[in-house]
């Protein structure tokens, strides 16, 4: 879910137009508006790392690249 606002240890996060409150009480890192977080039962439990996501996609696409199959 994407963080749309932060108020102390509480945040509002949004996905597919649905907004939900997300407590930041058990999150281990700072988040900013615009970050993506995993929200479970009203609590943010992890932040999504965009660089790692890009790297994952690169590895996935590489799995069937021509070079790889040679």
């Amino acid at each position, binding site marked *: 879910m994407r963080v749309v606002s932060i108020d102390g240890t509480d945040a509002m996060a949004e996905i597919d137009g649905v907004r939900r409150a997300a407590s930041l009480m*058990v999150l281990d890192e700072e988040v900013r508006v615009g970050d993506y977080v995993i929200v479970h*039962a*009203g609590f943010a*439990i992890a932040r999504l790392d965009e660089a790692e*996501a*890009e790297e*994952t996609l690169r590895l996935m696409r590489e*799995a*069937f690249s021509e070079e790889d199959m040679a």
Partner: protein
Amino acid sequence: MNYMDEFRDREVVRGLAARIGELAAGREQPLTFMEVCGTHTMAIYQYGLRSLLPPQVRLISGPGCPVCVTPNGYLDRAVTMARLPGTTIATFGDMMRVPGSSSSLMEERARGADIRVVYSPLDAVALAAREPERRVVFLGVGFETTAPAVAGSILAAREKVLANYFVLAAHKTIPIPMEVLSADPELGIDGYLCPAHVSAVIGADAYRRLAEERGVPCVVTGFEPADVMQGVAMLVRQAVAGESRVEIQYRRVVKPEGNRRAQEVLAEVFTPCDAAWRGIGVIPGSGLAIREEYAAFDAEKAFPVEVEAPREHPECRCGEILRGKVSPFDCPLFAMVCTPESPVGACMVSSEGTCAAAYKYGR
């Protein structure tokens, strides 16, 4: 990027399936990988991923649905508490239709019990604050993804000095049961797709003993279809090379050390205890009990109740399904007698249940 569409790309999924085929080619003995996460179970059925795998690679579902692995006795206790005057039961929606020995929360609500579905345990805390004359009991079911939220709710209740918020805790932890199942020669597990969000909390390092001492490859995997396929490819690669390590496929979320803050909150409120798993029995150290310091919020201690001896349905094969021995299609009740509308067992009712997934998405 929205972190979803990219990982559902058909081309990517097909490419990874081809890769798995290559890696497993020439392998005579089939490889059996188990997933232990309800969301993985659902994703695999929903996207028909088994049909993309070569015959040498077998995916089986294990005890990944926390509602499903909670034995009838817990439901019966919740039902008994729901009948107490002045008591409000607050619960995740999943628990409402799970059949206990003789009733369910849904049936109790129809009979006049005050039972409310909440999205977050914090909603239950707010409810307790708003209605001080009611005794609010939150049903704490879930693995390490959910337990920190419930721990957080107890801390919030303490901060608000609430005397009417309680948790009936039945939380369970997944690494120890994974070790128990890995020792079962009948199952012959060659590797685990490790859960995505449980691992975000506990960290990938939690599976090191399983990989390094028990020789079982572990890949922490996300649950978009491309994630699952990549996770399987990584498992096949390890198995074929005779390796057994912990790898993180879901690197955009999971760290080796996990979420230290969530772990601290967990350790503050909960302590490991023995727990009963439907279909497996008691697994020492696999549960979470509320610590003595927070006994005031422990529903079991605050008002113990007499509960009828639990009864399981004699023909329901939930237990074997949860242990990965049998598929839903092998259960005589599946789709005939046991359906989502009239479930016999928890595996059919829960949104993460193996039978519910099989029913909804077919083979």
